[in-house]
């Protein structure tokens, strides 16, 4: 019995391990393939080998030598950061109000933000295009930042209000009794406890803005505001007939790195159970 008892979990573990490996491989193969292509020389690009036969950094050198890519990278970072900061600040305030206050129209606010989150973005592209051209926002940073905030806010509000609800009401009452103004209570008690939630939300919103292709391609026309995902589609080789696959892959790898860094950097902050010990339990 004992032998069977100990063998069965080991077998189950091995099976789960195999399933895990299969899932990870399935998810990573396309990514690794892109990495592999980005290191291949132009001649071996189509040889079908997963591991490049001849390695080269040339693709990376090329993209950083073109103004096109650097400019797009600057646009991407700027637009995504500004949109993230604004969306998270507004979202924090709205989520706090939704979680803590009772005000007329609260249900409407929640409903509308859900509606926006569910609205198909494709259907808005043409009207937005016309409106932004009329308003002079077309092909500018604000022209992208505004729609990003619109679609990131519901995400931010939903994530953050869940976090605020987790923070015990009594902590705020305690802060008030200890002599804090509402602003002090928020800044010194609520905000530090909500920090993991704010960082999580910031990452989600940043990834959303960073990855967007639809608005980036439709609402920009020059490199003054074109972000990397859109710029990639305009990549050409040194001549019009040259295949830009290598440089596109190199650029794709480069723009994935900030996301990975972002997640790794903030992962430490996303610690569950920060509120443990505040109240009983």
């Amino acid at each position, binding site marked *: 019995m004992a032998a069977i008892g100990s063998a069965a979990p080991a077998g189950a573990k091995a099976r789960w391990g195999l399933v895990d490996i299969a899932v990870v491989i399935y998810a990573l193969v396309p990514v690794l393939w892109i990495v592999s292509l980005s290191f291949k020389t132009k001649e071996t690009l189509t040889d079908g080998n997963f591991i490049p036969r001849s390695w080269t950094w040339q693709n990376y050198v090329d993209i950083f030598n073109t103004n096109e890519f650097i400019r797009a990278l600057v646009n991407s970072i700027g637009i995504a950061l500004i949109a993230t900061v604004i969306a998270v600040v507004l979202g924090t305030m709205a989520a706090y109000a939704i979680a803590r206050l009772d005000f007329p129209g609260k249900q409407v606010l929640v409903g509308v933000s859900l509606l926006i989150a569910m609205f198909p973005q494709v259907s808005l592209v043409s009207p937005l295009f016309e409106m932004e051209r009329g308003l002079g926002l077309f092909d500018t940073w604000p022209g992208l930042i505004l729609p990003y905030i619109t679609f990131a806010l519901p995400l931010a509000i939903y994530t953050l209000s869940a976090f605020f609800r987790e923070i*015990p009401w*009594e902590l705020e*009452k305690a802060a008030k009794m200890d002599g804090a103004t509402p602003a002090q209570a928020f800044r*010194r*008690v609520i905000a530090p406890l909500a920090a993991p939630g704010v960082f999580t939300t910031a990452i989600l919103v940043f990834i959303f803005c960073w990855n967007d292709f639809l608005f980036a391609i439709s609402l920009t026309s020059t490199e003054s505001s074109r972000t990397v995902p859109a710029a990639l589609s305009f990549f050409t080789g040194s001549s019009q007939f040259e295949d830009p696959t290598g440089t596109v892959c190199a650029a794709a790898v480069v723009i994935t790195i900030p996301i990975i860094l972002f997640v790794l950097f903030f992962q430490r902050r996303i610690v569950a159970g*920060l509120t*443990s*010990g*505040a109240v009983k339990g």
Partner: protein
Amino acid sequence: MAEIVLDKVTKRYPDGALAVSDVDIEIADGEFVILVGPSGCGKSTTLNMIAGLEDISDGELRIDGKRVNEKAPKDRDIAMVFQSYALYPHMSVRENMAFPLRLAKMDDATVQRKVDDAARILDLTQHLDRKPANLSGGQRQRVAMGRAIVRSPKAFLMDEPLSNLDAKLRVQMRTSVSKLQKQLGTTTVYVTHDQTEAMTLGDRVVVMRGGLVQQIGSPQFLYEQPANLFVAGFIGSPSMNFLPATLENGGLATPLGSFPLSDRVRMLVESANAPREVIMGIRPENFEDAHVLDPSAQSGGGTFTATVDVLESMGSDKFAYFTIEGETATSAELDELAADAGANELTASGPQIVTRLSAASLAKPGEDLDVWFDADKIQLFDPADGRNLTYAG
């Protein structure tokens, strides 16, 4: 240090529900007052109104003679201990206790000295650098107390501060809270649903029910002279026994038998204009095993015989439970008390009574016992409105 006066304080919610109505309490400087009642009686709402965490719909709250209805909690200079302790989890014990002082912009040396003093009083000195998550329930409770006492406020408000502790610790902490309050001499308002805490801690106890103050008085006074059926049933453990009774020919007919009223009781009942049908209340300690008592000591009382259902020997005395044949006393107050105590209806065969007998009693479960009770100690209540017909106070 301050006196707190509640003058017809009322809390009405926007949906019209009346949580607290016309509460008049005068709390003297340095007094320890307990608000007690079943859940939903408005005691916590009353405390929150004193704290400033809830608005006062009507009436006036005065601290040190000044109206504070419109003042924010931070301007009232009172500290509160919460049931959940509400410690700031991201701060160490030292920072938790220093928080009110930092908000008051005190200099570092003063903060350090005050926190160290409070920590010494509460025996927290070796825990000052730990986070609340790493403390035991009792330690967290002490940190919460520390945060309250550290800035020497005008008054302490405590919202069931001991109800999250286990039974043994609760008794210990009860003693230390009482000592601490005497030592500091700070006006304290303490909310609890536990009548034992109310009886043992308070200088005065305020019994509340359904948003109304039922009676205010010292614990002993509430015990001996409850103003109505609700207070009588709520105060005391085990609680008072209630039986239906009929007043006739200067005597009382009860399921325990008929007996004449004592002169004291008769005079009170006559002046109270009592109805014929009443509810008799009698405390467990007013019963005694008839065999233990001298026959001479048994005058002025009645005797009945019943079968002992359950016998609990506490060493110093014995609690014997009987089921009496006859009707059960009914009234709105009694139903509410039963619901609050979670009493079940399993034994509907007749009224249950609890008696506290001397340890010398030879009572045995399942055997008949002659029980004597003191007819002068009975209390009579009007079943219609619950008022105490024998209230002398």
